[in-house]
């Protein structure tokens, strides 16, 4: 334990946190609009392969992310059309979406197996890189890390201070009332779902372009499901997602770093902590002991038809 690389651990935590942060913030917006999309894993993996394939073909990481966003959005649109226009059950549709996404990604990915990925450099932040402690932890990352935090900030701002955010939250809390006030429930929800797809796609692409970086079938390995847990852990607050992502990512990184430092760990039990903590957090939030704590959007997962 003498030279435990704490700074490297923190930097590793941020890398591990970014994909679930992106997917989580997208799902947060979806759930705030009252929709539960369990297909995050599927959208992420489609994003991962679209991002990798486009980046490889065009040799441009930016275009890669763009492709990933579109891939995720396309899949989300399928979910949106099914649940919003055809009124299918959200839970079942989301699960089917994950199944389909995994299959689609594996099909697209066949020519890209074993191919070396592109290298993504860090953002040149000049002197900030050299700040002791903060430099190596915070300022030596690639652009997507900062963009993801920017997205969190934007989501927080929009949800909290803009009319659009208010409409979205109103729809999530009580879609009938919002509809009566003239809000466009279906259109808003569709937009939120597509945004969720874009974010999940970017999160997936972060895996295949930066964290791993290559394509392998099934490479998300459950990250999408963690993103779902993350939103709950966050209590549906944007900054909470950031904290949660760092915690979830941190614990993943921590058990590996502890082992690298020669400490024996009980991997499974350490991995359980975030989920148990999330349940505890959920209980505290729901039991109303914390004043003004936001709860699950009241209309979460409920279908909306204007006629009824």
């Amino acid at each position, binding site marked *: 334990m003498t030279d435990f690389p704490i700074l490297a651990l923190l930097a590793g935590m941020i890398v591990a946190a970014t994909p679930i942060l992106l997917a989580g913030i997208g799902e947060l917006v979806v759930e705030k609009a009252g929709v*539960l999309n369990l297909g995050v894993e599927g959208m992420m993996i489609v994003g991962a392969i679209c991002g990798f394939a486009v980046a490889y073909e065009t040799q441009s990481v930016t275009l890669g992310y763009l492709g990933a966003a579109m891939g995720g959005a396309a899949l989300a649109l399928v979910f949106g059309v099914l649940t919003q226009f055809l009124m299918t059950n959200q839970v079942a549709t989301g*699960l*089917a979406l994950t199944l389909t*996404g995994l299959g689609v990604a594996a099909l697209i990915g066949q020519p890209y197996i074993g191919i070396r990925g592109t290298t993504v450099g860090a953002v040149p932040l000049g002197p900030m890189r050299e700040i002791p402690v903060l430099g190596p932890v915070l300022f030596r990352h690639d652009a997507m890390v900062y963009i993801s935090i920017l997205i969190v900030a934007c989501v927080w701002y929009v949800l909290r201070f803009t009319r659009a955010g208010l409409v979205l939250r109103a729809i999530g809390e009580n879609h009938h009332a919002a509809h009566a006030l003239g809000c466009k429930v279906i259109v808003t929800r569709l937009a939120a779902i597509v945004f969720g797809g874009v974010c999940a796609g970017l999160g997936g692409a972060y895996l295949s372009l930066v964290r791993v970086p290559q394509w392998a079938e099934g490479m998300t390995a459950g990250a999408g499901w963690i993103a779902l847990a993350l939103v709950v852990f966050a209590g549906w607050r944007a900054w909470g997602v950031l904290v949660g992502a760092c915690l979830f990512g941190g614990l993943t990184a921590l058990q590996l770093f502890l082992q690298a430092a020669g400490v024996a760990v009980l991997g499974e039990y350490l991995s*359980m902590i975030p989920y148990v903590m999330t349940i505890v957090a*959920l209980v505290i939030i*729901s039991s109303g002991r914390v004043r003004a704590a936001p709860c699950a959007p009241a209309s*979460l997962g409920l279908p909306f038809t204007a006629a009824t």
Partner: protein
Amino acid sequence: MTVLAQLIAVTATMVAGGILFWFLGKNPFEVIRIIFWDPLFDENLSSYARPQLLVKAAPLILIALGLSLGFRAGIWNIGAEGQFIIGAIFGAGAGLAFYPAESAIIFPLMVFAGALGGFLWAMIPAILKTRFNTNEILVSLLLVYVAELILASMSLGLMRNPEGSGFPGSRNFRSYPSAHNAELIANTGIHWGVITTVFALAVACVLLQRHMLGYQIRLAGQAARAARFSGVNPAGLVIICLGISGSAAGLAGMFEVSGPSGQISIDFNAGYGFTAIIVAFLGRLNPIGIMFAGLLLALTYIGGELASLRLGLPSAAIQVFQGMFLFFMLATDVLVTFCLRWRSRMAI
């Protein structure tokens, strides 16, 4: 109407899937035939594949039946996968504890333990829901991850086969007759899990049609406030629905692990609990519908396997095909709903 909608869905899937297979350079008609026809009627394969249909469909149907009760009442247990796992661990644990003693009491004990395991795991979201008003969708989903980690820990640690050269996974129940959920009639695929499923099917039909609880469940789902006025205890209903669905999933897990799967291993669960949710909805939460949905989905699994085996189709293509199938099935449901509504309006 329902049948028509489902026929439309199946046809649409065949067309869309056919196009997909054609793109992959396979003869679409052959693929479709292998998926939907061969497991049932091919003279060479069907005598094995037909019983396998029961083996694959039984846990799906059993879990989906349990879930459908709650879903009807607006109680969303989507953690059946976790209850399935814990049921299997309890059931297998009860059996392994007695190894190598042989006794007729062991298997019934395992069945009980399996149901208990699923029940207890489902009680966590149930009690949190009734005591603290936490959202049962999220708690039950989160508990799936915890259950998966417990499963990994069990197959690597406590339940690891001491004679298995250190490989992860428990002893195989195949070589422990008292605890083995064997095929009861050779070449039929029928094991105790299948029998339990048939029994559960009958119970579910009677319950929903004739019993007070079924009435309360339907009422709670359709009009929560009216249900409360008519004396339905919402907390009690949560406990009952989650308890039943948890026990059903636990039973399914126990039967799977002691029979077809044979041992506790890191990924024996293979997503039954999640697939069962889809089955419940495809069956429109109706016991008979669930039975057909379960069998149909099992058919696409077994047929899909055959297709990829015989034609060298990537398993991903089969996954996409199944995904399309589910989407079409879910989407055509809307036709039924609208037509019914339209017809009832016409009647007025």
